[in-house]
């Protein structure tokens, strides 16, 4: 399905209120395909949207390519979902932007199990909480590590467990 078809479909199901569609502003054919994204403004409806994207036969986004997180440096964090349909080979990007103090989004692990570790990594590195995650722990760092290192203003501790952290 073409990108515009997907957005029409989504808008008819979720209404205009759900978010804003951003078509790509680049010329390259490749970037046009990957660069357009869909800003989800209401995290409460994310899970519903995710199930719709996966289960709607005409969309069939059965594969979560990547779940990434971005710190914008202005006190807000984003979660970015790259989705792909292995049936129709079309792709879509979802984004949720939240202020850092309320960095909580529903977990999509129940929709795409690939999100399990990816969400744990996003929590570990960026400090985004995923509500409803079955195993919400850090994954790469120790459980007692202070802070989330991929945040832009992260200061690494001088000492960790009494050991001097080399710089």
């Amino acid at each position, binding site marked *: 399905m073409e990108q515009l078809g997907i957005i029409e479909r989504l808008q008819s199901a979720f209404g205009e209120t759900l978010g804003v569609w951003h078509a790509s*502003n*680049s*010329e*390259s054919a*490749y*970037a046009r395909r*990957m*660069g357009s994204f869909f800003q989800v403004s209401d995290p409460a409806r994310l*899970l*519903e949207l995710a*199930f719709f994207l*996966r*289960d709607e036969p005409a969309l069939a986004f*059965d*594969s*979560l*390519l*990547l779940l*990434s*997180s*971005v*710190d914008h440096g202005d006190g807000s964090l984003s979660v*970015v979902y*790259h989705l792909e349909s*292995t049936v129709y*080979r079309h792709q879509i*990007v979802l984004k949720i932007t939240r202020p850092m103090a309320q960095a909580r989004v529903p977990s999509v*692990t*129940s*929709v*795409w*199990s*690939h999100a*399990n*570790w*990816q969400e744990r*990594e996003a929590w570990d*590195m960026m400090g985004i909480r995923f509500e409803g995650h*079955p*195993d919400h722990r850090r*994954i*790469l*760092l*120790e459980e007692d590590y202070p802070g989330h*290192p*991929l945040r832009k203003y992260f200061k690494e501790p001088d000492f960790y467990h009494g050991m001097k952290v080399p710089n």
Partner: protein
Amino acid sequence: MPEILERNIHSHSLLHASAPVHLPDRVEPKRLHTEEMVLNIGPQHPSTHGVLRLEVVLDGEVVVDVIPHIGYLHRCFEKHAENLTYPQVLPYVDRMDYIAAMSGEHGYVTAVERLLYIEVPEKVEYIRVLFAELQRIASHLIAIGTFGMDSGAFTPFLYCFRDRETILEMFEKTCGARFLYNYMWVGGLSHDLHPDVLPMCRDFLKKSRATHQEINDLLTFNHIFVERTAGIGVLDREVAINGGASGPMLRSCGVKWDIRKDDPYSIYDRFEWEVAIGSSDRGEPGDSFNRHWVRMQEWEQSLNIIEQILEQFPRQDATDVQSAIPKRLKPPEGEIYSRTETPRGELGYYIVSNGDVKPWRVKVRSPAFSNLSLLPLLSRGYLVADLIVILGSIDIVLGEVDR
């Protein structure tokens, strides 16, 4: 919660760590449950392929649950990348998937070039694909060899290393490094092909086909090996797609999905080759044997691609391989998700640029990370020996898992 949500959550409950364990029928006697024992495999263990720790809950020798603990090799590549310029990221990219550094570089430079709209000369593309395919063979040789070692056969491992050595020699001749190359630069290459490499390549094609046959006789079709691996750790097609499996792991389930064919990058659309998928000749699609078998086939297909590269290779071409390298690498503001097929699967780079010489955010979709996350699902209900085989068949590189 709407009804549809509940149904779907339930249907995927098996993927969760807290889900009840259903032992497959093949483990007998089913009702004989003993006290559970926790066995730590790793971080230092002969078969964890690096520093991976598996917390295995055992009932006798039956694996009840596996909890992988990763992060021992975590170097925070993504944080590093934010503090380095685009060309400086490359040595770090090498060190992510250190078994297949060329493929990792290929993925990174492809992503940055797409971000910058750089067209590289044809000759550069040919050399890149040639080296990426050689690297794929080298990486698969290690995967096949260590998989044999995990199942107890030691000798194929060394035969594989012998062949890999030839490939590394070609790389060393061309760029001076055997392992961590820093060879593919954004917009070009660090060196032109060494004149010895093409003849060496032709020679290698012949020798490698012989080794392929040898490994088949020695390992792949060995009945003990087939018995050990066939039907072990079966990954369901839907679960594989849903769980983010890629590369040989996904193809072994019978899914014809290869980025080189389905989302072509570089010049892969110029070559004729087959996407290797798992079959049910021996074992069943998605099992450990088919993961190995897909790698064996891909080795052959890569040889085919290399053969075509050698035929089509631009002759007497005086192209400067550094001609398209921009003086100052400063991509426009924007973001990209670009993916390539490495030996382990889909390597994606999500790069956000704010118009600076340093990337704002680099996120790596590392195939080994995603594939490893399926390990608990694959190995529940099998024996400890099978767990090792399953882990070996996934072919992880801890540098890439932990980044």
